[in-house]
Structures are given as structure tokens and as C-alpha cells.
């Protein structure tokens, strides 16, 4: 009974895993955005190797969750979309990493 409770406690972070971030493509997007201050769509497309449509749909999901801020601006009359990790997204990403680490550490060989 005690063992069971302990095991449940160890796997508690598993229930707290953020499903929005847990998708590999979205995780990669967030990871790349966490190492830069801001980046445009083309940069992320090159780094993640995702197709235009795929990247676009993942970005909308991340934007809906409030993890990514999308800012449209004009540079020399050319439109440019700059993407950056929001404060909420940064916290969620760090939390996700911490939770995943705990889960993976608690899994015995």
C-alpha cells in the first residue's frame, strides 16, 4: 500500500505534463524560441524542418495557449512576422522540462 502510494507520488509530475508542449514539433519550436530573443517564420522553418502549413498550425496552437507572441511589422515596406516566447510560455517550458526530468528520473531501468 505504502509502495503504491510512493509510486503514485513519483509519477505525479506525469499528470502535470503540458500537452500543448508535449507534441514534438511544438516542443522543438519552443526550444528554438527559448534560445533566441525573437525569430521570424522562415528561420523557424529552416531550423525545425517543418513545412509551412505544419509550422503555421503549430504556431497558432502555441499562440492560442499564450506561449508565443506573434508580432507583425514592416521592415523597408516588407512585412515581417516576428515570433517570441511569451513570459507564460517561458515558465511553461521550464516547468515542462522539470516535470519531464522528474518523470524520466523516476522510471527505473
Amino acid at each position: 500500500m505504502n509502495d503504491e502510494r510512493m509510486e503514485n507520488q513519483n509519477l505525479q509530475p506525469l499528470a502535470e505534463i503540458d500537452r500543448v508542449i508535449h507534441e514534438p514539433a511544438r516542443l522543438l519550436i519552443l526550444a528554438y524560441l527559448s534560445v533566441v530573443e525573437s525569430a521570424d517564420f522562415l528561420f523557424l522553418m529552416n531550423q525545425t524542418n517543418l513545412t509551412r502549413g505544419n509550422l503555421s498550425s503549430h504556431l497558432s496552437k502555441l499562440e492560442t495557449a499564450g506561449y508565443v507572441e506573434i508580432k507583425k511589422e514592416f521592415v523597408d515596406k516588407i512585412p515581417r512576422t516576428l515570433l517570441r516566447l511569451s513570459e507564460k510560455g517561458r515558465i511553461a517550458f521550464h516547468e515542462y522540462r522539470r516535470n519531464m526530468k522528474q518523470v524520466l528520473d523516476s522510471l527505473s531501468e
Partner: protein
Amino acid sequence: MVFAMDMKKLKQDSYRLIRRDGLSDICAGLMLAMAAVFFFNFRYAGALIVACSMQTIILPLCRKNITYPRVGYAKFPARADKKTMIFWDFAVPLIAIALIVSIGIWARWLLPVSLGLLLAGLSLAGARITGYLRDFVIVGLFITSGFAGLLFIWNGKDPALVTAYQLWILSVILVTVGLVQLICFLNKYPKPPQEIINE
């Protein structure tokens, strides 16, 4: 795959994508060529100003027109704090210039070595960020060129002239390496359709 994700490597990959264009090597090479003009004849001090503009004006302009439309734009986080920024952007170049000028006045024979070591130090910082072997080879080349210059001075050549030739040779190497990279970059990354750039 995902859990083996190394954040340091992701950061390095991001730097590498932008640096793959070879433009920084070309600009650094042209900067050295301009600085060489100054050492060839100290009256051409204006060449140093042109040299400085290479990294601050020409390089960003080239990146804006060549690199960003092909691989995209990324802004990297500013250095940790204001004090560090002031140190690297103002104090280090000032100390370096003062050092080179005083070495030029009091011990001209040390010019090639001091310049070689200074350039090696500056490029080592970039090499450590990208992790490219090529960048570390260039660091080695800067150091070697300094000591090679010293040999010429011991054989009775004028230190300023030796320094000028040292910088010219280094500039030719850097521009060549940069041009090869730029050609590879342009072939590998053609300009994508406008709608993707505008996405």
C-alpha cells in the same frame, strides 16, 4: 530524440545558420585589408575608420539583403548586463588600440605578434560560439602569422611593413574562405517564395 535535446547545441545551431553565409569572414578580411593600408602608411588613418565600418555598417546591411531573406532572421539575447556590454563594446577596443599604438611607438618589433594575438583572441570568442573547426584554424592562423612576422623583423625588415603584409595575407585568406562559404550558402539556400518570407 526529443529528450536528448541539448539547449546549448540548439543555440549553437541557431548561430551557425546565420554565420553559414561567410559574410562575417569576408567583412573581417576587408577590414584587415583596410587596416593594412594604415600600417603601410600611417598617414592613411582614415582607413581604420573604413575598417571599423565593415563590421558595424556593411555586415548588417549585407545580412539584411543576402542572409535573412534566405534563412530567416533571428535576434539573439543581448549580453548579460550593461557593465559587460560596456566592457566589450568600448573598453576592450580602446585598450586594444592604446596597446597597439604604444607597442608601435615603444617596441615596433612586437607589432605583428601583438596584432596576431589580439585578432586570435577576438576570433576565439566567435569560434567558441559556432564550434566550427574552420574558425579555430583561423585563430591558429592569426597566432602563426604573428610569429612568422617576428621572423621577418629579425631578418631586418621594417615592422610596420611586415605588419601590413601580414594583414594583407590574412585578409586574402579570410576573403577567399568567406567567398567559398557564400557561394555554398547561396546554392544551398535559394531565396524562398515571397509569401513564405512574408508569412
